[in-house]
């Protein structure tokens, strides 16, 4: 139960930051793919850097063990990613 409360709170943080970064707007998404607006990349890369640095520090301190991540299977990831991109550019959300 307590993990569900954590999930709600973290979800609120997630949604809040998505909205404030402007990722809920069509033109931000579409213009990223046309390379005329780099908001999404700036946002994603900042998040990755913060999370990655923190995670490795926490692991070094012994506070966390990394959760299992889905194994890479190149063909699936590639084809899936391509289809995903088509859909995302089409929907623009």
């Amino acid at each position, binding site marked *: 139960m307590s993990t*569900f409360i*954590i*999930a*709600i709170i*973290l*979800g*609120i*943080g*997630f*949604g*809040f*930051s*998505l*909205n*404030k*970064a*402007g*990722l*809920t*707007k*069509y*033109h931000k*998404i*579409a*213009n990223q793919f046309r390379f005329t607006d780099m*908001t*999404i990349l*700036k*946002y994603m*890369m*900042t*998040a*990755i*850097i*913060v*999370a*990655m640095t*923190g*995670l490795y520090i*926490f692991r070094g301190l012994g*506070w*966390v063990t990394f*959760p299992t991540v*889905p194994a890479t299977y190149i063909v*699936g*990831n590639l*084809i*899936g*990613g*391509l*289809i*995903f*991109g*088509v*859909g*995302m550019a*089409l*929907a*623009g*959300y």
Partner: protein
Amino acid sequence: MNRIKAFISQESWSPYLAGILLGIVGLLAVLLANTLLGASGAFESIAGLIGKKIAPSVFSNIYWGVEGGRAMPVIRPEINWSVILLVGIFFGGTLAAISSRTFKFRFNDDTQWKRIFGPQPWKRWVLGFLGAVIVAYGSGIAGGCTSGLAISVVCCLCQPLSYLWRDLWFLASSPF
């Protein structure tokens, strides 16, 4: 205090700042719940849950698991952590839009979209729906969406229902 209020009620933050917030959220997810952020799996769990009720024979496959089968399902049809996370994302987006006073029901108000495709809302809905179906299919094959596959990032804006959500959701989109 007033400065903090004024800061929160800004319509959009610097993407770097919002990115730091998301990074911290992703970090806390691992620290507190030992889970990675992700959203596409949640949509698939919900779909499986509904599908198993409506058409059990169709949804009894390797993907959602077979009753009494030994193989682990790819997606467990259940209310799990990421489904709850999704609920939180919904409210987080709503909260952010309310905080910047841009909460509004919108059907098609993006000027760029209107310029390219025309002003009719139904076009927006049809294209959004088709795009979302393709996105969901792609994320199913790839085994995740943007968030799950890149440590814990974006996504959620690109899932089947998200397009409906966007309208119900918040849309801090600029008035023009």
